[in-house]
């Protein structure tokens, strides 16, 4: 269990994390979401005690992580797959970590096998692809069989098979009763991975709830309509209280369901060629909720 309480971190004048509070429970895969620069990585560093919060507290299993003399049996973490020394072999890297925590050598072979790096164990990490480095980082996180696991953007660089494997691993770890926190800036990555979500933007909490609750939040169904008389139908629907956006060859209607649109069209003898209800996806819910907090926006501001 990870408990984040009123966590704040300022660097000079910028506030990276702002009075953030949430709890990550065992037995679930919790997605940690936010756009680039939202403060995810900073939060994870604060959780691990690598950085000191300006104010607020964070505990893992009821204790500040920094107060533990050895960490691997309490928390397994993959912060950044590149944060390894490229000159070492995978085997040497894991041996160093295992040795420092008095973890038997046998575990090194086990985790190498588990992440599929057994064949590359003697190769220098510098020559690894990003996907292989991610696997190595995951191996390091698993070394101590910890009850809490943190992964920062672990799906980056993995091939589809790797993504599938990692999702399976997350679910298995959660089913074993472990606390699993997985960060990402892509909602689509979380859809089949997490069952709970913590969403942040500009360092503040936007949502902390189950995936279904989150999806329901953003659901503002829209109806796509195609008609040979877009101007006429737009006037008709707007007159009845709907919001209509005119696209290239279709209309997007919000604030009115398909049944009512069909009824109105029939009554006013407007021909419809398409009438489709679209519920907002998780991705859209995420975009909608974080729109105000996006740090780096391409092109014009919304």
């Amino acid at each position, binding site marked *: 269990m990870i408990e984040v309480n009123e966590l704040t971190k300022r660097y000079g004048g910028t506030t990276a994390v702002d009075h953030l509070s949430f709890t990550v429970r*065992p*037995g679930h895969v919790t997605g940690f979401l936010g756009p680039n620069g939202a403060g995810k990585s900073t939060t994870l*560093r604060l959780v*691990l*005690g*690598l*950085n*000191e919060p300006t104010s607020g507290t964070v505990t893992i*299993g009821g204790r500040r*992580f*920094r*107060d*533990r*003399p*050895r*960490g*691997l*049996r*309490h*928390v397994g*973490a993959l*912060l*950044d797959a*590149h*944060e*390894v*020394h*490229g*000159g*070492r*072999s995978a085997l*040497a*890297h894991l*041996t*160093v*970590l295992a*040795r*420092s*925590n*008095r973890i038997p050598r046998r575990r090194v072979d086990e985790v190498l096998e588990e992440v599929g790096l057994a064949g590359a164990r003697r190769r220098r990490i510098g020559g690894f692809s990003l996907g292989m480095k991610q696997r190595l980082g995951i191996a*390091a996180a698993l070394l101590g069989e*910890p*009850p809490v696991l943190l992964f920062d953007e672990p799906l980056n660089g993995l091939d589809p098979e790797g993504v599938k494997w990692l999702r399976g691993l997350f679910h298995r770890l959660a*089913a*074993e*009763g*472990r606390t699993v926190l997985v960060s990402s800036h892509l909602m689509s990555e979380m859809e089949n991975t997490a069952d709970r979500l913590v969403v942040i933007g500009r360092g503040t909490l936007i949502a902390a709830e189950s995936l279904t609750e989150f999806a329901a939040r953003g659901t503002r169904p829209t109806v796509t309509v195609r008609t040979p008389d877009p101007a006429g139908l737009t006037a008709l629907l707007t007159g009845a209280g709907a919001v209509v956006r005119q696209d290239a060859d279709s209309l997007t209607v919000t604030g009115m369901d398909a049944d009512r649109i069909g009824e109105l069209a029939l009554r006013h003898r407007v021909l419809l060629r398409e009438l489709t209800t679209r519920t907002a996806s998780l991705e859209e819910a995420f975009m909608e909720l974080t729109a105000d907090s996006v740090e780096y926006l391409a092109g014009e501001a919304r």
Partner: protein
Amino acid sequence: MTTTPDRAAAAATEMETATATARADLAQVTEPRARFRDLVAAEWVKLWSLRSNTWAFVIGALAVIGFNVGTAWDTYRYWTAQDARSRADFVRDGIPLSIAFTANAAMVLMLALSAIGATAVVGEYRTGMIRTTFTAVPARRSVMAAKVCVVTAVTTVFGTVVAAASFGLTQAVLSGRHIGVPIDHPGALRVLVASALLAPVSALLGMALGTLIRHSAATMTANVVILLLLPLVFSADRHWAAVVDHALPTGAWIRLVDVDRQPVAYPWTLTGAWTVYAIWALAAAVVAVTSVQRRDQ
């Protein structure tokens, strides 16, 4: 497949119980007692699992020994005096000992070892490995203390081997002209020990600066400034400058290997020079161990 609500509820309860049991097991992390020697062992593996470190030691040793043996060879080659008197003067002036470990060799040793010491720390900051290290072992000071132990031990052995090899080889070459001295010659052991210990002192200085600065180039520059530049700036002919010079590791080494005792403006004792060595080593170790505690990583 259909399931009655009752049965589903029962199954759910059963699952919850199972999960609760698993959680209870996980909440109780069984952990062996944390031992400092595991950290030392880990740092030992860390040091030797990088081929670049092995090469740095090998090339450093060859360069230092090469400088010394080269000077001895030059002396041997161009030795023209035939009489016993010149040979006696040569030995009395302590020149065989200054050839046993030359100032050039000391310079190379200081640069190489301060770089090796710095790399032990900066290498982790440059790659970000430091965060992996401190996540595995949140007791940061213990990690750094283990690193200090390993670097001190390895570089002391390195310095001893290099100084002993230099002494043996240079005196062997010089004895071809009957101007070599044995290890029990007055001052010989001191030259050997002072030069050997220059290795760990330089390495610890590099580590301390690396821990404070965290960037390769800036750390190397700081090393060069302290070990080479400051001794040049603070020449020993004014009192205040002499005091600064005597407080530097390079100044201490020069004092310790000075067997000839030419009169200088501001003389100082051997004990003073050994103390300077000890203080630099100790202060560097303390800085390396303590400065990681409060800063963000």
